């Protein structure tokens, strides 16, 4: 929606008034599913990364090698989280635009880098911190827009 200062607020297409029940409900739903998408992708990727360290090199077209990889418990956990990601992503996309969902959920890249530093003791260089800052500003910019603009064809 557009408030008195002419700024778009998250979660509210223009035709709903500010602070209406529908607007608040929509905002909460968007935040909850964005959180679920981000957490499931960060935890899922981390789990896959950890599992593939144990499985070892896998650049082959042999299906057996991939089956063996999938049977690793960490890879299996990663797949379960990926399924959770798929469902929450589809739910979010049922009302939010792809051009909103993509940048907003990319906060996951920052969390993945931090998980790499905390749990895998990866180095975070100055360049990487600069990248994290850019991503956070991009996310903040897009998160201020309404997830779905009224008038857009569905």
């Amino acid at each position: 929606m557009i408030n008195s200062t002419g700024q778009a607020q998250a979660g509210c297409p223009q035709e709903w008034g500010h602070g209406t029940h529908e607007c608040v409900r929509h905002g909460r739903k968007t935040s909850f599913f964005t959180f679920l998408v981000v957490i499931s992708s960060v935890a899922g990727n981390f789990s896959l990364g950890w599992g593939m360290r144990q499985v070892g090199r896998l650049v082959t077209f042999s299906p057996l090698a991939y089956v063996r990889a999938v049977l690793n418990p960490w890879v299996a956990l990663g797949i379960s989280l990926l399924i959770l990601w798929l469902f929450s992503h589809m739910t979010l996309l049922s009302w939010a635009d792809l051009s909103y969902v993509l940048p907003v959920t990319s906060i996951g890249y920052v969390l993945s880098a931090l998980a790499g530093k905390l749990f895998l003791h990866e180095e975070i260089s100055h360049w990487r911190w600069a990248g994290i800052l850019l991503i956070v500003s991009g996310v903040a910019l897009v998160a201020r827009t309404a997830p779905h603009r009224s008038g857009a064809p569905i």
Partner: protein
Amino acid sequence: MRWLLVALIAATTTISDVLQAAAMKRHGEIRDFRPGALGRVLALLARNKLIVASVAAMTVSFFAFIALLSVADLSFAVPATAASYVLETVLAKYLLKEPVTLGRWAGASLVACGVALLSR
């Protein structure tokens, strides 16, 4: 080999996301989150051709991703998957007819530059 896998991941992720977004736009907003209602939505979507094609593309993307993880660090592989970012925003505008405002372009560009720096 790394960059070949990155290209494969970017292409299949783009196809998967755009098909999924198109299918969910057609389906409309999910409002009822009771288990029975969610089950019915799931049954309906499982028969949706766009969703089936999207999941097929995602499966290829997944196996390419674990192959990439076996030869590269997590801190390279995860940001590299954002290579599809700008293309996806362009497709969202022209194929899905989304109103990509200046704010969204600016945000998407900032994120894309940030991701490029992350992979350094």
